[in-house]
């Protein structure tokens, strides 16, 4: 149970998490962060971080840039106020204010997250038919940063089909391939045209050779990439179905922001 929520010093849930931990460790006020010192530490930790995916790494770098810009601004004397009436340190907002606001808000949610983790640990200590089944083993735990669920599901289904094939002989000759990816693509589209939708398993003719299965799968991937075909399933690990993707109802790209 204790493993449900751990703050691992080497793995941060995000750049703000790292920054907050540095501030806490240094025992400085969040409202008066020694920017120069914390920035140096932040950069040191950033270098020591294990491999990150590109997007997460970029987020860490963005905050590093923010910190460096702040550090530079803190080193420079404040520009003289335009009106010349206000004595120094007057209405001019602390350059750190924006960062502090973000940290304060972020810290609130992090504390609630810790509360949720404790609740989850409690709920996990009970068993029964009505107990937290939605977290059950139905959905595979796909680690963040892996393939999208659809692709994973495709790959799993593909492996299931491959597993039904006989192991390749230890020694074999390479005959010319009887199919091309393009032919298989047309064949898939044609079948979908007629049937509307197609269970994944039926894509492969019974008794198909390994090379035919591979080429058919490649054709499917290509069709998915081109947006001509969509794979869907009712629930995680459920049956995969292929449907035609009419240009009209093509899904909005995943990357929308």
């Amino acid at each position, binding site marked *: 149970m204790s493993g449900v929520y751990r703050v691992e010093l080497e793995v941060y849930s995000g750049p703000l998490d790292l920054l907050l931990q540095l501030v806490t460790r240094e025992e400085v006020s969040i409202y008066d962060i020694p920017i120069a010192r914390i920035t140096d530490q932040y950069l040191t930790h950033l270098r020591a971080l294990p491999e990150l995916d590109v997007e997460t790494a970029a987020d860490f770098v963005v905050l590093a840039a923010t910190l460096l810009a702040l550090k530079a601004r803190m080193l420079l004397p404040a520009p003289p106020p335009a009106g010349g009436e206000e004595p120094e340190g007057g209405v001019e907002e602390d350059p750190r204010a924006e960062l502090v606001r973000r940290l304060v808000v972020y810290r609130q949610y992090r504390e609630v997250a810790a509360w949720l983790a404790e609740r989850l640990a409690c*709920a996990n200590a009970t068993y029964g038919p009505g107990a937290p089944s939605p977290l059950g083993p139905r959905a595979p735990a796909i680690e963040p940063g892996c393939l999208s669920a659809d692709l994973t599901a495709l790959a799993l289904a593909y492996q299931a089909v491959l597993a039904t094939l006989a192991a390749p002989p230890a020694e074999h000759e390479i005959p010319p391939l009887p199919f091309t990816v393009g032919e298989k693509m047309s064949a898939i589209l044609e079948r979908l045209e007629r049937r509307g939708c197609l269970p994944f398993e039926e894509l492969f003719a019974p008794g198909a050779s390994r090379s035919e299965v591979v080429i058919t799968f490649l054709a499917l991937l290509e069709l998915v990439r081109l947006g001509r075909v969509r794979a869907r399933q009712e629930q995680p690990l459920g049956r995969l179905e292929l449907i035609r993707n009419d240009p009209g109802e093509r899904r909005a790209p995943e990357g929308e922001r």
Partner: protein
Amino acid sequence: MKPQEALRMLEALVFAAPEPLRIKEAAEIVGLDTATTANLLRRLCDEYAARGAGLVLEEVAGGWRMVTAPDLAEAVARLGRSPRQGPLSPAALETLAIVAYRQPVTRAEVEAIRGVHSESALRTLEERGLIREVGRREGLGRPLEYGTTDAFLAAFGLRSLAELPPLPEPVLPPEGDRGAAGRENRPETAERGAPRCRGGC
């Protein structure tokens, strides 16, 4: 029907229900009004708690469920057949917290608070049935809005969202600059539900 008979029936219903038993559903089956049914369920819960039973009745997400007592977790786990869910990563928990308090919320809003891409965390939570798409925000790009599900309440042993503690009051800066302080609090979340293992009611 004698209360004792109704109690027996409710006990059986809660035991057999694959999901938290809705009071309305129970009332229909037992043939009593919902208020009486709710009272009886509470009484049943009290009875279990009073004799320190190995099972507890608890109210979550608008329904009642019967589960093993939390202190017996280790013993039950030794059966080895009870599937347990994997833990949620700190990133997923943070994301879940933001969705729970700010729903309906868009991915961009979650990312603005966390300062990091949150697509995979949202996807994990969605796959686990803890959050779902609840609509689209009007405006540029019509981004998806996320909210928590009843399964979220059930998984965390909560009766309703009102049981979430209020967002912690930010410690104010020594002087002046109140900045964003306090703006994030939801006044409607009433009493602070301390994290504790409910022994039933």
